[in-house]
């Protein structure tokens, strides 16, 4: 059971109360009209899919509704770091 304290409403939420938002650090091409097919393919589909510490997004779905960033170990499910969007660079 993954349990994360939401960095916005500070409530403790279980995985059933949260929505998983996938891998973090996936950045949309800044100038889409100039992006090559390869850059679009990378953005849309290709993932690092790391085994171990993994940057990802979660949403406090049954709660305050805010998205936030989490670094979690994908083997042990240990939550290593929880960030608000205003606390570090986008990604």
């Amino acid at each position, binding site marked *: 059971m993954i349990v994360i304290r939401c960095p916005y409403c500070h409530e403790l939420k279980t995985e059933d109360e949260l929505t*998983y938002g996938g891998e973090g650090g996936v950045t949309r091409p800044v100038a889409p009209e100039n992006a090559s097919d390869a850059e679009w393919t990378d953005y849309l589909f290709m993932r690092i899919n790391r*085994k171990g510490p993994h940057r990802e997004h979660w949403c406090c779905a049954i709660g305050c509704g805010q998205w936030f960033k989490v670094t979690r170990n*994908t083997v042990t499910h240990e939550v290593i770091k929880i960030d608000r969007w205003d606390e570090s660079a986008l990604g």
Partner: protein
Amino acid sequence: MQRYSLFHLARQALRGNKRCTPAWNAPTLKSKYDVVIIGGGGHGLATAYYLAKNYGVTNVAVLEKGWIGGGNSGRNTTNVRSDYMFPESVAVYDLALRLYEQLAKEINFNIMLSQRGWVTLIHDQHQLESAQHKRNSLACNGVDAQIIGRDEVRRMIPSLNMQDAARHPVIGAFLQKRGGTIRHDAVVWGYARAADQLGVHIVQGCEVLAFERAGGRITTVNTSRGRISCGAVGVAVAGHSSLIADMAGFRLPLTSHCLQAMVSEPIKPVLNHVVFSPNTGVYINQTQKGELVMGSARDLYASYGQRGTFPTIEKTITAVVEMFPIFGQTRLMRHWAGIVDIVPDSSPILGPTPVDNMHINCGWGSGGFKAIPAGGLLLACSLATGKPHPLAVPFGLDRFRSNRLVDESAAAGSAH
């Protein structure tokens, strides 16, 4: 090598099984192979077998980090079926089922194929209409499928909760009679024995650590048991494909997830089919030993944790007891999880990679076990000829760039 038969079984039994020989050898790792296959699960071993049998390539090593069949091949629910929507998908999955149907005779190993019928329940009018659509689509592709009414479902599965007041009422079912179950270990052991007989080296406890490259090709595979020069590399490691791709310097459109299943204590025969409920995502069947094997949807977050988690166990069991109230007193015996490789369009990735001599077989998601013979055959073709098999062409890695996805999940309305 001993040929298995009823006579062989009886003779060994009378001798107290003292003269049984190992089904495959434990060879010394050589420093050079024509083909190195990473992953000693069903897909990797089937690849080795078809490479040797169909293409005459026998200087082959299958490298397995743990023990053969210890990954997803030993962590599934042993279900087989071929009721997919798109012609491209049906061609591959039905090839797998047809190969499975003849496999026991071909490799002289009883894989315990039980074509007991794969029943997808229909809970409402919308599901009935999509089931009719799917049946017609399958008929066009030459695959058996039928829709059965409520009374027929009640006759076939008397223990199913069919009350009008049920949480998920049943108005009929979609049935693929050729679907069913197979003994999963037998597939792994059977392919291992058959490949070994043809000269393939099966090397267990051998982890791939890195690749050495020259001119866009992999020249050497560095493993925990030494360096191996290779002509070509085949990858069949399912949920761990991204790690191998990372070592080889490219990325894949995969996310690894945990898919769980569990088994009850054995009870008397009560369930003769594989039953799936699209509303709960739960599927259940009874093994020949009498255990109830149950599974449901994958955990929705990325995971490499090869073990069950309680929220999923609870959801699965709740749904099973809702569908089959008589199982409410049954005790759970074991649960397990495999790491499935989920692709955005829920279709496999087969064939060449950005590295010239590396070919891949991954992305089967939760449908890998049923696809083993086809996955092996198609990867073998790719490795032997350097080009994808015609059936594998729609499933190339390049489809994400050319935007020609085979969107099975959207077409079938359920995860695979």
